[in-house]
């Protein structure tokens, strides 16, 4: 692949803007482009997207592809579509925090037997269903998470005690999930 193509691919794949320095590091070992060459490449890519509905712009953090503002009405319609569903992993993580709070990510991972992605914690924090209530005094001082008032509100609970005891949770019927899932569709 040529430098132009690599730069284009990398800028598309990056989750945030990349500056010349970062591009240079990524291309470094093979193509040794200098900054001027990189800037030329970027100029050429910018030109080739002139007639397209996306553009390569320079923002504070570097260069990034973005959708042209003319497409805003449709893009916002796309994004305001029906809400996504939370993953099983997220729900399991949330339920462990509810029943075992205050608890750390490490403890959740130990119970679940698989790692808990940062994304999940991030989503739960953003949703304000959990929050950090302190740190555990063990090596690394991991954050202690607990559920919030918003969590109780969403699930229409007055307090945590209204969550059923473990013995009842164990007896829950699988069929009920199917019902819930179907009503969502």
């Amino acid at each position, binding site marked *: 692949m040529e430098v132009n193509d690599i730069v284009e691919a990398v800028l598309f794949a990056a989750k945030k803007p990349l500056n010349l320095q970062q591009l240079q590091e990524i291309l470094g070992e093979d193509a040794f482009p200098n900054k001027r060459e990189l800037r030329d490449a970027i100029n050429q890519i910018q030109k080739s997207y002139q007639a397209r509905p996306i553009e390569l712009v320079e923002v504070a953090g570097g260069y990034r*592809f973005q959708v042209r503002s003319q497409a805003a009405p449709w893009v916002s319609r796309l994004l305001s579509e029906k809400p996504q569903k939370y993953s099983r992993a997220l729900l399991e993580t949330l339920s462990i925090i509810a029943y075992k709070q205050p608890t750390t990510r490490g403890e959740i991972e130990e119970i679940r037997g698989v790692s808990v992605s940062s994304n999940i914690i991030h989503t739960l924090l953003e949703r304000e269903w959990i929050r950090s209530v302190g740190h555990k005094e063990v090596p690394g001082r991991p954050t202690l998470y607990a559920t919030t008032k918003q969590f109780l509100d969403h699930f229409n609970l007055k307090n945590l005690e209204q969550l059923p005891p473990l013995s009842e949770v*164990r007896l829950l019927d699988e069929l009920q999930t199917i019902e819930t899932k179907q009503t969502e569709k």
Partner: protein
Amino acid sequence: MAESNEQLDSADRFAVVEGEPVRELPEDLYIPPDALEIFLETFEGPLDLLLYLIKRQNLNILDIPVADITRQYISYIDMMSSLKIELAAEYLVMAAMLTEIKSRILMPRASTNEEESDDPRNDLIRRLQEYECFKKAAIEIDELPRLERELFELSVGLNQIEVEQPKPVVELNELLLAFKSVLIRVERLGHHQIKQEPLSVRERMTAVLALLRDSEADFIAFVDFFRPEEGKLGAVVSLLAMLELCKEGMIEITQAEPLAELWVTSPTA
């Protein structure tokens, strides 16, 4: 053919003598004991090991010399056990099955037309072939270009386009069922248990930590965590919560001198 006959003969004499289990193994079967465990780990089970033994001799699954392969298979199993390597039960079941097939083949049969219908190897051959198909399929699937390895999704900025995206709604039921599956898994894996703890205590633990975190002061008086209007039960819940937090190193309780006031603080606050 000659070689295989020779091996057939020696198969009857072959036995694992304590201390010298490798003595009579053919050259190519020798593996340094250290490597043996790793070697076994590279197999996905008895079928995989059998396939390896067959392929290594460029044999077709359809005409496995059962006696020969059985002998080799069992010599592996014996080596493992003499090295005190813990074997999955499936390996032993396969050894028994192979031995049975071998004895049935060696038994004189009335019918001369054995190759066709009643070959005791048929079932084993079918299983080996089926397993081989999926083993190959697994390799092919692994070679497919996939996201996050060869292919990457794009991430394009949405500059001025700001939208309030509706948040997913979760029913309490879904949450509880998620927790149920955690419980079931934990119980099955065994090395863990989630005990029933009164949620009122858990909730109070959170409240205590929140109070500490949100307060301006580093120390809060112990008595401030108790509310008279909650009565005895409330006091018990608070006390249990503080003891649990203390035990888990989430709070510290200090006292300047005997009988002085108790203070609660977060550790290394």
